[in-house]
């Protein structure tokens, strides 16, 4: 399993989206998110985007006020994960139009849906923005 979890966290350290690809209890998740957020948010722009934490490698990138943090296995390709984060942001941008933290807050289920189109079982399965967004647009039309 390449990707273990995906987090979106704002500058204040509040989690805005959390998607796990392995089962963790609430307590484990709370501890993990706390540690990671503390570690990553303290880093500066000049530092690299990779942090080792426990047995994960965290690849993160900041977009405006939101941090995108992806926990991966140790032999995952860090640069590819950065590209994946970028793809995710672009996809959301295309859907919401100039995406911001509030879009994700109020349309959490859509953000989840996009993630589910892109990642299954911890590996990236879809990388075309059009393919990712087609089902969600259909659903929007239907409802």
């Amino acid at each position, binding site marked *: *399993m*390449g990707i273990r979890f995906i987090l979106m966290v704002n500058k204040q350290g*509040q*989690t*805005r*989206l*959390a998607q*796990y*690809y392995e*089962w963790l209890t*609430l307590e484990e*998740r*709370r501890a993990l998110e706390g540690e990671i957020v503390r570690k990553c948010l303290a*880093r*500066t722009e*000049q*530092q*690299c*985007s*990779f*942090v*080792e934490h426990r047995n994960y490698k965290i690849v993160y990138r900041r977009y405006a006020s939101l941090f995108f943090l992806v926990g991966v296995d140790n*032999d995952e*390709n*860090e*640069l*590819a994960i*950065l*590209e994946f984060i970028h793809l995710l942001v672009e996809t959301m941008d295309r859907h919401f139009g100039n995406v911001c933290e509030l879009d994700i*807050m*109020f349309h*959490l*289920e859509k953000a*989840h*849906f996009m993630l*589910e189109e892109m990642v*299954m*079982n*911890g*590996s*990236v*399965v*879809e*990388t*075309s923005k059009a*393919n990712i967004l087609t*089902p969600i647009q*259909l*659903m929007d039309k*239907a*409802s």
Partner: protein
Amino acid sequence: MSGPSLMDSLFQRTLEDLIKGLRQQLIGEQAFISKALEEIRKEIKSTDLSTKSTALLKLSYLSSLHFHDMSFATFHALEVLSSPRFSHKRIAYHAISISFHDSTPVLLLITNHLRKDLSSTNEFEVSLSLQCLSRIANVDLARDLTPEIFTLLSSNKLYVRKKAVAVVLRVFEKYPESVRVCFKRLVENLENSDPQVLSAVVGVFCELASKDPISYLPLAPEFYKILVDSKNNWVLIKVLKIFAKLAPLEPRLAKRVVEPICDHMRRTGAKSLVFECVRTVVTSLIENDSAVRLAVGKVREFLVDEDPNLKYLGLQALSIVAPKHLWAVSENKEFVIKSLSDADPNIKIESLRLVMALVSEHNVAEISRVLVNYALKSDPDFCNEILGSILSTCSRNVYEIIVDFDWYVSLLGEMSRIPHCQKGEEIENQLIDIGMRVKDVRPELVCVSRDLLIDPALLGNSFLHRLLSAAAWVSGEYVEYSRNPLELMEALLQPRTSLLPPSITAIYIQSAFKVLVFCLLTYLMQRGSTASSMFPDNLPSAVSASVSYESFDDLSVENVVDATDTHGPTCTSASITNESIVNLLNLVELALGPLLGSHDVEIQERARNVLGFVDLTKLDLLNSSVQEENDSERKGAEASKTIELMHGAFSKELGPVSSSAQGKICLPDGLMLKENLGDLEMICGDIDQPSSNSFSFGSPYEEKGGVSFSNLQIKENSRQSNESTSLLAEHRKRHGLYYLPSGKSEMISNDYPPANDPMLLGNINDNADDLVKLTEESLTPKRKPNHAKPRPVVVKLDEVDEKPESKEDSLSGAVHDVLFGSEDIVPTSSQSNLSDMPSSKRKGKEKQHTDSHVESKENLVDHGNPSSRRRKHHSHGKERRHRSPRKKNAEERKDNGQKLKEKSSHRHGMHKSGQRAEEPFNFSVQTPVIPDFLL
């Protein structure tokens, strides 16, 4: 409690209301959430599915972002799942995938829902249930839904097919039997031209291959095709990962893939793909020089890039290459060393690792010097990181790379004075270890220890206490090499030792005891020899320690006169005078007296020992000066006898003892060691064997006798009294009472400066450029002239050292036997199953080229005809390795573990898949072989 009324449903808050409320609440987040949860608990019991699903949606939100338990709603989630409306289903599936896990009680109830949705005509419903299955599937779900997955694997809707492919990974993991059913179709998808499906299926194989690469070797041609043809970087990266696993297993394959990988590396503009190629080359194709050279070239591009990410990855790649191709690191050493001062601690640590990889016998001194200076200026974390890596590198393989131990010991001393140093424990171990292993370094070791002990500022740093205990032990044990034992005594008994923890104070007292005995004995000897030099005819009696004291009075006077000019840190024997002995004994009494009341048993007892000894000898030694000659002679002889005895007790040398030494002791007759302890083995079995170069005190190292005074080794080049002496002097001034009188004049009057003020150390390279320059020089592998000095003997317990290793091997071998049975080829059941399939597929494929699809059809349709299949297999038999019956048994045994309980229901309920699952048992008579796809 009654269900919610109609009004409740009408005025139910939506998720949006909840989120807005959370942002605007005035009653505190926790209070607001618990109120909302209360509402949710009510609403979720509603019979109206809309109300229920909204409640579930809100609950999922709170659970996912605010960590609130939603296990109470698992059954409600199932109810919402049964709704015919897609939007409800979506909510339910999301809730289920975040809240269900293997031990959720209602998990069994979901099977039929999933099955229904998996065979739905609405592809989005199918996709929802596949996604859900990929998150929650357990053994039962995986088993029961295998037929549906199998069907979906060849669905003509690509959207569904790609998700079915992705879910297969989880199903295989949970229910290995399903491999027999689905593997074929999975492999067929590998040839699918659709990029969506291809990316999913490659992802699955990448994961499978990372766990058990050997089973997937037969698929190499397919992967190779993708490697050459695919234009999708995501897919290429995954395929490269697969090859990184496969290439080491099959040298011919490695040769074959090098070219396309290098092509990709040269052509592509995507950094991620370049990096993956580099990583594949440096991990798996390390033998191929031209590829490694190309990869290192790319790494260089990364290193010079502005982007810290690329820099970090470049350094990481270098550290993978380093063990096999050190030239790659030395070619890039300027970057590596420059990165030591990077803004990012992660990059700094990576570059530190690389610098340490460059260390060799020739440059260890220079590199360490540079790094220690650098550590002085670094932040505490990185400082300790540096110190830790110097310590571990230098002590590797029993100090393999150290030639000049004097230098290393003084480096240890210097390191412990770095203000942030927290490596006291490690330095402690090394000081003692070196003391015992390297005889030639002891004078320097004592010298370094003295400098550490004498510095009152070090006592304030609790991280260094362990280190001070080592210094105290060394100076007591090897006191005969000391230039000035009296000074040592002062250092050991200085008032600030009260800052030490009791266990270490005890070591101080014990060392003080040894020093005291040594001083007294030296004094006696000296008196004897002076006497004998004055009375040459007395020579024989003077050589033995039982000296005659005829001219005691004259002697002492002379010595006092002497003392005025011989005082100070010069030769030992000259400085011990009658007066100084009196002072010494007074000092001991003064310092240890209060400790008699200590609450710590160890301290109390040792202090009492020392004081008792002082009592015993003091009277005799000192009174003799005022009594008549013949009386003093007798008494003095008595005292000196005691002193000699004590010295004899201390002069047994301790040597390193291998931790496996006990194994060499043969078993005495009649001792039944294993009789009652057999059970213990199970408990202790998992405790690791200590590493071979660890040592323990306790048993004396017999072959060297006590060190006699005649070969007292005293370093002649008297060292200038340094900073720390002046610190002590300053302390002495303030607490004069506790010190021996001294003739020296002191002038420094400051409070303790920090142990090692970076400013004071002059000559620190202030920027990284200097650092680079310095190391540049040191990294050039030149033979250093000052290595003319031969490397001292380092005591290694070679023959013993090997022992634990082999023992460990047999131990792990035994564990391996127990755990894995006899299978070293077949690590787990799932893998052994998997290993069948590729070969069957392989065979199918080979036939495909000639007989079209006959064989594969047969496998699917004609499962009642084993004999014809077997015949076919025999025709391919020559390509197969024969599976030994043992291996098959092991496989079956393992399978049974998982299967037993499932099998009964499975075989009856799931006739179709059960039948199919039996097929591979016919296969398993033969074995998978790696067909020679490369030739």
